[in-house]
């Protein structure tokens, strides 16, 4: 493989052109998807990776005869935890504090960043090592810390690839799945000063091991996320594969865990359900290599200063909407994005959020209070593959439709919508569908009107307005001379 200067652009991006994952700044999904759709290498990488995980997942789920029962139990536990979130958060706080941890509460991203920065300043930290945490990406922690002179070093292999490659995550479990081995080689060779590096994944992995080992042994502060918070015990659980998580959780003097308030499970034993599903759903393994659970501080074992930052940042508002509350059941397995035929074509960056795919399409706009990312609820064909694989039974298509209704209700009274072809069309269609005679008249008019566009072969090859979007890649058969109801009426007359 050749690695010319063009490879400098990760997966085909123009150099320095970093994907925008801030919902307030990102372009709408259909626009953001365009450069990706032209990037055949990236689409190939995404399709390959998602096909592999999906096949492995399907195999392991088929082997598990009680999978549907586990889904029922998991959904039940998560629903119960959310319905009683206040009590469980307080219980978690009390138990964690009793075990020597310090619990902080952050109403929004800004407050969470400030709390973490203050904690790091108390430690006089100049560098902090991090386990992959989507929540820290959600609050854009790294650039904030770097602006304050604290280097945030990612330690997950995929996150290193992205950090060194000036790229952004495109998946919540395998964040660099849009990058292939040749591209990883190029990034590592350039940034680690290893011109002889080959594109063998073993060699690349070894390079990352050597690069990080010194950091693990020397940097005294770490930041992690949490897969689960256990209310009963005040424990935190983190699942991972590489061991970088265990490094961050045990070697430093100070550990700060950032967790969304929705991550609470009532009991330790609830893990018997969640952890039978998480790895199978996420990576197609019966169990991920490492699962760590710790409770506050233990003398002589692991960090002696432990802080948990509980983050709201829009979650309590989602909780308040009863039909959409199920969004918060999510355990971040990413099975929905692996199964999604839209994600398969676009990868994650087009979603303009650290949470891509179907779960991102419902979570992102809700986290912004429906102020941004309003194109995401439409970034789905509603095929239902996401719901089918979701281990906690989040009915994503139903929520997508609810959010579309919310967007429409926000927009429908805006003056500009009077001329919006979608709104106009929907309003007219509603008038027609309410009265059969009007509907039938419209059918006849359409039959005449479309005749202009109908070619001699009886098909329409190009259309104006919104129809042009259809005609981009598809013809439309010209309208038949007789509708079905006309045929039926005539048939009855003849009889």
């Amino acid at each position, binding site marked *: 493989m050749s690695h010319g200067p063009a490879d400098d652009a990760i997966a085909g991006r123009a150099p320095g052109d970093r994907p925008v994952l801030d919902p307030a700044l990102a372009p709408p999904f259909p626009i953001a998807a365009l450069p990706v759709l032209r990037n055949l290498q990236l689409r190939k990488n995404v399709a390959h990776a998602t096909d592999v995980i999906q096949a492995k997942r399907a195999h392991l789920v088929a082997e598990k005869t009680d999978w549907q029962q586990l889904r029922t139990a998991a959904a039940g536990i998560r629903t119960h935890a959310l319905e009683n979130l206040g009590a469980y958060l307080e219980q978690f706080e009390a138990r964690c504090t009793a075990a020597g941890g310090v619990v902080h509460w952050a109403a929004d991203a800004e407050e969470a960043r400030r709390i973490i920065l203050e904690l790091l300043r108390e430690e006089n930290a100049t560098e902090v090592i991090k386990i992959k945490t989507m929540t820290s990406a959600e609050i854009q922690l790294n650039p904030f810390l770097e602006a304050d002179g604290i280097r945030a070093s990612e330690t997950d292999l995929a996150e290193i690839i992205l950090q060194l490659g000036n790229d952004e995550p495109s998946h919540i479990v395998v964040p660099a799945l849009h990058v292939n081995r040749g591209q990883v080689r190029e990034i590592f060779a350039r940034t680690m000063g290893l011109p002889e590096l080959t594109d063998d994944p073993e060699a690349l992995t070894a390079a990352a091991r050597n690069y990080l080992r010194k950091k693990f042994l020397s940097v005294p502060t770490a930041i992690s996320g949490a897969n689960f918070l256990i209310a009963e015990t005040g424990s935190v659980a983190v699942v991972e594969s590489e061991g970088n998580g265990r490094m961050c959780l045990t070697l430093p003097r100070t550990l700060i865990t950032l967790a969304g308030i929705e991550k609470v499970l009532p009991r330790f034993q609830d893990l018997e359900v969640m952890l039978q599903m998480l790895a199978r759903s996420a990576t197609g393994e019966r169990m991920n290599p490492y699962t760590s659970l710790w409770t506050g501080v233990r003398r002589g074992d692991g960090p002696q200063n432990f802080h948990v930052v509980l983050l709201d940042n829009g979650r309590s508002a989602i909780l308040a909407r009863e039909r959409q509350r199920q969004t918060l059941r999510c355990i971040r397995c990413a099975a929905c994005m692996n199964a999604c035929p*839209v994600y398969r*074509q676009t990868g994650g960056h087009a979603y303009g959020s650290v949470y891509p795919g179907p779960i991102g399409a419902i979570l992102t706009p809700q986290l912004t209070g429906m102020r941004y990312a309003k194109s995401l609820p439409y970034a789905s064909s509603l095929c239902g593959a996401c719901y089918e694989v979701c281990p906690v039974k989040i009915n994503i298509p139903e929520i997508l439709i609810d959010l579309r209704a919310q967007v429409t209700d926000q927009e429908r009274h805006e003056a500009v919508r009077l001329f919006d072809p979608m709104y106009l069309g929907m309003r007219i269609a509603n008038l027609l569908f309410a009265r059969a005679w009007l509907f039938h008249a419209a059918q006849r008019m359409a039959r005449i009107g479309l005749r202009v566009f109908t070619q001699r072969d009886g098909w329409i090859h190009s259309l104006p307005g919104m129809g042009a979007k259809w005609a981009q890649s598809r013809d439309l058969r010209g309208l038949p001379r007789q509708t079905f109801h006309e045929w039926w009426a005539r048939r009855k007359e003849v009889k």
Partner: protein
Amino acid sequence: MEAQYSDSDRWLYCIAVMRASLFITCYNDTLFPETGRAVVRLLERLGVELDFHPRQTCCGQMHANTGFRAEAFSQARRLVRMYQDVDALVIPSSSCVAMMRDQYPALLDELGDEPLRRQFDALLPRVYELSEFLIDRLGVDDVGAYFPHRVTYHASCHGLRSLALGNRPSRLLSKVRGIQLIPLANIDRCCGFGGTFSVKNSEVSSAMLAAKLQDAFETQAEYCTALDNSCLMHLGGAMHRQCAGMKTIHMAEILASTQDGEAQA
């Protein structure tokens, strides 16, 4: 032709007095009347006394799925009232049946119209997608059809997941005389239609379509069939654009075909 039925005359007796009403759906009425004619031919051949409500229009799916809930309310209300007295409602479109099963309950609850909700609850068990009606209600999988062509079956997402049609389509197709069925790879992957998705996200939709077409073309079938003309409009439109030679056909039309040809009712 009689000989074709010899192994299954029991059902002829069972369904002798079956009555059903046909909800053709707005887009089939306008764009695919041949599907409706095929359903009539098929069901009448099977002895069903078919009725058609002339004032029917739309189930509201397009509005609901695009976020126009208020508009979907009025269509749901209209449809439930229109069909409250039917013995059975047959709909040759899996997505419209899915609309009623998945979305009407919440819509009607939101409307807060208790009597309407009760009417709907009473109606719902009598609502059938075409293949459900044939297999579950009529108890027949051999409909005496003849279709000597290579055919591949595309499972629409709504049929596959919402209605869980399972092996009903393949049971029906496998009993068709002369047919050569070729399985479609990645049958559980969406074709990219998704209603207004195909316009709002036209480029992504087209990319999904291209992937589906590739699988379809690899079957080398003459026809791609489905229980939903919306997918077929999408697939067929692209096949025509690409001069691919493969055609789309609603499964009702295959099941309605007989050896003595297109006997127009």
